[in-house]
């Protein structure tokens, strides 16, 4: 309700302003064109995500200075601290970077955004910027109509720059014309009351426009047209710096606790920097004068001096806040605690992950790993073995022989509680995340969805296995009991081996060693057939028991096959092309049988062909 009222008020004030002054209309149109240019620029840069940007971000955030540099450089290149903040929040919520790295990026982005003021003051106001805008718009729009993703992205960037330049031109023209009718500098307020008032105006303007860049352009063009005093312009720049945190806060709403912590760090940094800048504004102005003399900036070139001030107080903020970074991160971690989530609830699927295709894929990967964690509990319990006992490194023979009590575990109930709903959430997230993805990225999502389905299939086969296992583990016939123990032992071995492979996901040979598990289970199945033939001939077991054992061996093989398939997709941490190469050399049923010298049965029913 408040939002609607606010929107209506803004629209009414603007309409009244347009009716009152055509020059104001020109300035407002300039701001709108500028903001549209920023949107177009963002859209263009998004076309290049899903590769270069993500790889760069992952490689350049292992040290604080690297995160800082990434923030400075990426914001300088993209001219949008909001986009960099959103990318950082998105990466953080998908678990790709640490909170410290995210904070480093945000600090860097604050310094990087000051290059906009330099570009505008040094270049934008001194040349006929509209002359550059026109060809950019024409070429940009032509490229937007092309099919290729990269070429389309380039078109959006060109058109975006064109609109930015055109917006600046209209703002400049508007203020120049405005000067002839109204002198806004008459409303200048001196001293600290003026500082506080204009900080507030800068803050509100940035919150409304959601772009400190746009506010800064407005300030610089107004300053160049002498519609605002230098002192008040400095205060407006401070206000714009605080107001820019609104994008990060909005971006963090759909994010997890880490995203909110990062938005908190952004707010703290900008508030502290603003307070220091307000407190030291007159000292900083003197420092700006000194630096301007060193840089050869004219005494009355206030637009460039504003750019110096903007960079100076942001750099000062970084110098002040860097030593406090770790305590600040600890404080945020203490204050903003993650909500306690049950195992059945998704932990990584947040709206913030939709911002970039690669973060959406990473979120799905993490969540599917979480699904596997839940599923492996169900599978282990279905075998009557606690998962921690399987994974703790003890000899599995001892673990299996120790636990022989009847299995009181409802596989179906646990599947419905901890797996089914979570898998449903993953599938729904995938269907929502697919728009705006390259075919390769969509393929990766499909393979992750298939990995989830393999996990579910493995549970279903465990459920079938569980029924007979509960019965025959108490059989009076030692051979039967021992055969079911072997099945349990093999499957426990599969779970343990998968856990070990998961820990060394960066190693291609570890991922490919998963084929061995299938091989071992196939070998076991073959040996079991030989043993059973002998037992049937010796009349040691009845026909129904033979059939049960044959079916259960097949179920165990299916569980292994599905889990191995899932492990190949889910556990590899290598880059996408390397993962694809690993998967391409993984052996199928026929190749596996050929390598082991066992008969092949493509349909997976390995017992149908008796030795």
């Amino acid at each position: 309700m408040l939002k609607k009222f606010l929107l209506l008020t803004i629209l009414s004030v603007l309409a009244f302003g347009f009716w009152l002054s055509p020059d104001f209309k020109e300035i407002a149109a300039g701001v709108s064109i500028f903001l549209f240019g920023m949107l177009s620029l963002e859209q263009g840069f998004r076309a290049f995500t899903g590769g270069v940007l993500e790889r760069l971000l992952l490689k350049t955030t292992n040290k604080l200075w690297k995160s800082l540099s990434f923030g400075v450089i990426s914001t300088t290149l993209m001219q949008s601290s909001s986009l960099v903040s959103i990318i950082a929040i998105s990466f953080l919520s998908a678990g790709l970077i640490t909170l410290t790295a995210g904070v480093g990026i945000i600090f860097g982005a604050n310094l990087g955004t000051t290059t906009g003021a330099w570009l505008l003051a040094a270049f934008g106001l001194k040349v006929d910027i509209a002359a550059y805008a026109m060809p950019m718009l024409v070429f940009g729009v032509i490229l937007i109509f092309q099919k290729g993703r990269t070429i389309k992205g380039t078109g959006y960037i060109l058109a975006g720059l064109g609109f930015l330049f055109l917006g600046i031109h209209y703002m400049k023209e508007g203020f120049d014309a405005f000067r002839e009718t109204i002198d806004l500098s008459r409303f200048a307020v001196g001293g600290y009351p003026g500082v506080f008032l204009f900080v507030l105006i800068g803050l509100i303007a940035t919150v409304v426009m959601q772009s400190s860049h746009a506010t800064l352009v407005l300030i610089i063009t107004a300053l160049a047209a002498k519609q605002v005093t230098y002192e008040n312009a400095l205060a407006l720049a401070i206000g714009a710096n605080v107001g820019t945190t609104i994008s990060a806060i909005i971006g963090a709403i759909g994010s997890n606790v880490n995203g909110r912590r990062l938005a908190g760090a952004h707010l703290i940094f900008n508030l502290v920097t603003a307070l220091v800048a307000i407190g030291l504004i007159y000292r900083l102005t003197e420092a700006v004068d000194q630096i301007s003399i060193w840089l050869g900036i004219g005494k009355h070139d206030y637009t460039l001096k504003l750019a110096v001030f903007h960079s100076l107080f942001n750099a000062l903020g970084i110098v002040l806040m860097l030593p406090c970074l770790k305590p600040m991160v600890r404080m945020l971690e203490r204050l903003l605690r993650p909500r306690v989530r049950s195992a059945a609830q998704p932990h990584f699927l947040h709206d913030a992950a939709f911002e970039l295709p690669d973060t959406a894929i990473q979120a799905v990967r993490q969540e599917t790993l979480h699904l596997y964690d839940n599923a492996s509990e169900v599978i282990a319990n279905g075998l009557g073995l606690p998962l921690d006992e399987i994974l703790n490194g003890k000899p599995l023979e001892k673990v299996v022989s120790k636990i022989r009590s009847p299995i009181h575990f409802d596989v179906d109930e646990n599947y419905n509680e901890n797996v089914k709903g979570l898998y449903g959430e993953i599938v729904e997230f995938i269907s929502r995340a697919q728009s705006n993805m390259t075919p390769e990225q969509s393929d990766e999502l499909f393979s992750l969805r298939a990995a989830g389905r393999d996990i579910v299939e493995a549970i279903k086969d465990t459920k079938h296995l569980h029924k007979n296992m509960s019965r025959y583990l108490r059989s009076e016939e030692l051979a039967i009991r021992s055969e079911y123990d072997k099945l349990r032992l093999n499957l426990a071995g599969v779970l343990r081996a998968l856990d070990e492979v998961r820990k060394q996901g960066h190693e291609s040979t570890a991922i490919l060693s998963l084929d061995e598990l299938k091989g071992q289970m196939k070998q076991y199945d073959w040996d079991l057939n030989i043993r059973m033939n002998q037992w049937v001939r010796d009349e040691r077991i009845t026909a129904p028991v033979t059939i049960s054992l044959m079916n259960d061996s097949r179920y165990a093989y299916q569980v292994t096959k599905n889990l191995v398939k899932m492990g190949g997709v889910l556990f590899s941490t290598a880059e996408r092309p390397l993962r694809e190469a690993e998967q391409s050399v993984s052996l199928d049923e026929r190749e596996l049988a050929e390598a082991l010298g066992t008969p092949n049965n493509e349909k997976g029913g390995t017992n149908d062909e008796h030795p």
Partner: protein
Amino acid sequence: MNIRKLAERTRAFLDSDERKRKEKRKFLKHVIKKLKKHEKTLIKKLECEADDSKRAEIEVKIALTHAQRKKGLSKLEEFKKPSKVKAP
């Protein structure tokens, strides 16, 4: 570099299929190299192993690694640049 070579290189750079083919070959070669190294390590391990059951386990591992490497090599052949067929 003559003009024809330059044009060929530019075409290869702009051709996304060609780039993908090269990328696939590069990563496949990397995996094959790793498998070869792994196979050699397993063979050495087998030579030092006296226990029969452990030897059998290692032999299975060698057989599978070998099969994976062979599969990789045949895939590598598939990704080879198609040879130019001269017009008769």
